C-alpha cells in the first residue's frame, strides 16, 4: 500500500466513523426537544422518560463524536498539509464558524445531560433547543468547506501566492445551499428512521405501550417530513452538480459517451475498460430530462475529459444508486406508515408486517447518508480541490502513514464495538417513571 492509499483510507475510515456520530448530534437533539416539549405541555411522564433515555444516548454518542471530530481537524493538516495550507488560507474561517457552533453545542450538552435537577424545566428545555440548533448549524458550516472543495471560489493564485477576493464567496454560491439542505435532511432522516426502527423492533417483541408508541411516532413525524422533502433537494442538487461538476455527474449516472436523449439508468455496473454501463434498466431520455428538463438535451459523458481525470466510476455509480434506493425506500415507508395510521390509529402497532419493515429499515438512512458522501467525495477525485489541486499532490511526505492508519483503524474498531455494547446495556436498563 502506498502512503497516498493509506492516507486516503485513513480519511475514509475517520470520516465514515465520525459521520454517524455527527448525524446523531444533529438529529437526536431534535427528537429529544420534541419529547421534552410534549412533557412540558402535557405533564405525561412517559414523554419525560423518553427524553431522559435519549439524552443518555446523546451524552454517550456526542462524546465519541467530539473526539472523532478532533481526530479529523488534526488529520486534515497532518495527512494533507498542502491541501490544508490552501484551504486554511481561503476558507479556514468557515471552520471557525463551525467551531463556535460546536463550542455552544458542547457547553449546552453539559448543561442538558447533567442539569436535569439543577435547571428549571423550561430552562432545561431551552438548553436542548440550543443543542439542536447549534448541532445543525455546525453541520451546515462544515458543508460550506466541503462545497468549496467542489467549487473553489473566492480566491486567485497569483505567482504562487494566494489572493483572497471574497472570504464568504462560498456562502453566496448556490451549491452550498443545496448541499446544506440535502445533507441536513439526510441527517434527520437517518437518525429518525434508526430510532423508529429500534422501537418498532421493541413493539414487535413486547407490544407497544404509550412509551414505545411515542418513541415511534415522534421520529416518524420528523423522518417522514424529511424523507418526502429529500427527493426535491436531491433533484436540485443533482441539477447543480450537472452544471458545475459534469464529470462527477457522468460518473454518478454511468454515462461514458456524450449523448443527446441520454437514458436514466437504474442499477447497472459501469465497465470502465469497455466504457459502457451494463445490466441497467434504462429509461430513454430520462437523464437528459432530469438534468435539464429537456429529454433531447445533450449530457456530457466521461469522454469529455482524459481518463486521468476520471473518478472511480464503479464506486461513484454504485454509491449513487444505493443512496437513491435508500431514499426511495424511506419515502415509501413513510407513506405506508401514515396511510396505515390514518386508517387504523393505534391499531398500527399490531401490524407486524409494517413494524417488521420499519425494523429492517433501521440502518437504511445511515447507509444512504454514507453512500451520498461517497458520491460527493469519490466523484470529486482525482481532485482534492476540484480543478485546483490533485489528491496525490496534497499528501504528506512524512513517513509512517501506514502504521498509523492501522493503529487508528484498530482504535475506531474498539470504539465502535464499545459503543454498541454500551448502547445495548443502556437499552436493557429499566425505564424511569410510570408506564402504561
Amino acid at each position, binding site marked *: 500500500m502506498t502512503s497516498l492509499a493509506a492516507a486516503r483510507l485513513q480519511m475514509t475510515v475517520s470520516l465514515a466513523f465520525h459521520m454517524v456520530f455527527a448525524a446523531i448530534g444533529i438529529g437526536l437533539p431534535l427528537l429529544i426537544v420534541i419529547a421534552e416539549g410534549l412533557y412540558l405541555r402535557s405533564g405525561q411522564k412517559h414523554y419525560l422518560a423518553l427524553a431522559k433515555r435519549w439524552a443518555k444516548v446523546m*451524552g*454517550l454518542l456526542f*462524546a*465519541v463524536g*467530539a*473526539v472523532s471530530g*478532533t*481526530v479529523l*481537524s*488534526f488529520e*486534515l*493538516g*497532518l495527512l494533507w*498539509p*498542502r491541501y*490544508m*495550507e490552501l*484551504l*486554511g*488560507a481561503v476558507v*479556514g*474561517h468557515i471552520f*471557525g464558524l463551525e*467551531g*463556535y457552533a*460546536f*463550542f*455552544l453545542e*458542547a*457547553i*449546552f*450538552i*453539559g*448543561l442538558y*445531560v*447533567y*442539569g436535569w*435537577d*439543577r*435547571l*428549571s*424545566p*423550561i*430552562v432545561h428545555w431551552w438548553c436542548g433547543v440550543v443543542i439542536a440548533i447549534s448541532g445543525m448549524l455546525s453541520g451546515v458550516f462544515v458543508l460550506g468547506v466541503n462545497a468549496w472543495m467542489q467549487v473553489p471560489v473566492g*480566491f486567485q493564485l497569483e505567482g504562487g501566492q494566494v489572493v*483572497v477576493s*471574497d*472570504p*464568504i464567496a462560498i456562502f453566496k454560491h448556490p451549491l452550498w445551499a443545496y448541499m446544506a439542505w440535502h445533507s441536513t435532511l439526510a441527517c434527520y432522516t437517518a437518525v429518525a428512521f434508526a430510532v423508529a426502527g429500534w422501537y418498532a423492533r421493541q413493539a414487535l417483541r413486547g407490544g407497544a405501550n404509550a412509551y414505545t408508541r411515542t418513541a415511534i411516532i415522534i421520529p416518524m413525524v420528523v423522518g417522514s417530513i424529511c424523507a418526502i422533502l429529500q427527493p426535491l433537494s436531491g433533484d436540485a442538487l443533482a441539477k447543480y452538480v450537472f452544471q458545475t461538476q459534469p464529470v462527477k455527474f457522468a460518473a454518478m449516472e454511468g454515462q461514458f459517451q456524450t449523448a443527446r436523449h441520454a437514458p436514466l439508468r437504474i442499477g447497472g455496473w459501469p465497465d470502465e475498460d469497455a466504457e459502457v454501463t451494463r445490466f441497467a434498466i434504462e429509461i430513454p431520455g430520462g437523464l437528459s430530462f432530469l438534468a435539464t428538463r429537456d429529454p433531447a438535451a445533450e449530457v456530457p459523458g466521461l469522454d469529455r475529459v482524459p481518463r486521468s481525470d476520471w473518478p472511480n466510476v464503479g464506486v461513484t455509480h454504485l454509491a449513487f444508486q444505493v443512496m437513491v434506493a435508500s431514499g426511495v425506500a424511506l419515502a415509501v415507508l413513510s407513506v405506508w406508515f401514515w396511510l396505515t395510521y390514518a386508517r387504523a390509529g393505534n391499531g398500527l402497532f399490531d401490524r407486524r408486517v409494517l413494524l417488521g419493515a420499519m425494523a429492517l429499515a433501521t440502518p437504511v438512512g445511515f447507509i444512504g447518508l454514507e453512500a451520498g458522501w461517497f458520491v460527493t467525495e469519490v466523484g470529486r477525485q482525482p481532485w482534492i480541490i476540484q480543478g485546483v489541486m490533485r489528491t496525490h499532490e496534497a499528501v*504528506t511526505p*512524512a513517513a*509512517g502513514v501506514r502504521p498509523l492508519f492501522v493503529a*487508528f483503524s484498530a*482504535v475506531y474498531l474498539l*470504539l465502535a464495538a*464499545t459503543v454498541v455494547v*454500551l448502547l445495548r*446495556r*443502556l437499552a436493557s*436498563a429499566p425505564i424511569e417513571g410510570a408506564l402504561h
Partner: protein
Amino acid sequence: MDVSAKWWTDLAALAALGGIVAYALFGGADFGGGVWDLFALGSRKKEQRLAIQRAMGPVWEANHVWLIFVLVVVFTCFPRGYAALGEALFLPFHLALLGIVLRGASFIFRSYQNTAPGAAAETSGWGIVFGAASTIAPVLMGTAFGVVTQGRIGLGPEGEVLALHPATWLSRYAVTNGLLALSSCAYLAAVYLTNETQGALREDFRQRAMFAGTTTAALAGLVLLLARRDAPWFFGQLLSERTAPLVGLGLVCFAASGWAVLTRHFRLSRLFAAAEVALLLLGWGVAQYPYLAYPAMRLDKVAAPVATVRFLVLTLPVGGLLLVPSLWALLRVFKSGSQSRLPA
C-alpha cells in the same frame, strides 16, 4: 506586508495564544484529573475518583473545544505554519491525538459501563485507559512545545519542511518540557479539586497539590537550565525586557499559590495557580513573538491573506458574545457548589 495586515495577524496570534491559555487552564486540569484518577491511592481511593468524575463530567467536552479553537485559528490564519508543524511533528502529534481520543472516549465509556451510581470509582479497564491517556497526552503536547522553542523546525527555500531527526522530540530538553506540562496539569487539577471537596478528601488533594507543585517547580528550573544550552534563542527571549516581567510575575503567582496551598487558603490557591499558568504561557507567547516557530516561521511569513485573517478576527467578538455567557452559565451551574436552580 503593510501595517494593517500585521495588526490583524498579531491579533490572530494573540487569539491563538489566548486559546492555548484557556485550554491549559480548563482542558489541562482535566488531563490532570485523569492523572490523579490513575494514581488514586489510600483509603479514600474511590472517593477521589468520584470527586474527579463529578468535577469533569459536565465540563470536559466544553473544555476540550479550546483545543479545536486553537487549531482553527492557527490553520486559518497561519496555514503555512500549520502545514509545516504537521509535517515536522507528524508522529508526536498523532500520538498525542491517540491520547486525546482515548482519554475522552474512555472517560465516557467508564461512566456508562455500569449504571449503578459510583461505579466509576471501581478500577476498570476503561478507567486505566482514561488515566494512562490523560498522562501521555500532556507529555506529548509539552514535548511539541519544546521542539518549537528549540528552533528545530526548518524550512527550505521552497517552503518545504526540512527533515527532522526523530530524536529531536526525544531530546532531553523536549522531554523535560513534556514532563513539565504533565506536572503543571496535575498541579492545576489538584488545586482545583481542593476547591471542590471537603474534609479528609480535600486534604488528599492538598497533599497531591504539594507534591505536584514541588515537582513542577523542580522541572521548571530544569527546563530553564537546559534551555540555556539547548534553546539559547528562546532562553534569551525569556530574559528579555519584554518577557521577563510576565515570567517573573508568573513565578511570583506560583509561589503565592504554593503558600496558599500550604496555609489552606484554597480559593486563593486556585486563583494564583491559574494566574501562574496563564502568565507563564503568555510569557512563552511573548518570548516567541514575532515567530510561530523560530527561526523559519515568522508570523507574517506564514500568515494567510489578510481578508481571511480579518474575517476570523472579526468573528471573535461575535463568538465571544455567544460563548462567554454560556461558559459562565456552565461553570455557575456546576461549579458554584450550591444545588440552587437558575431562575426560570
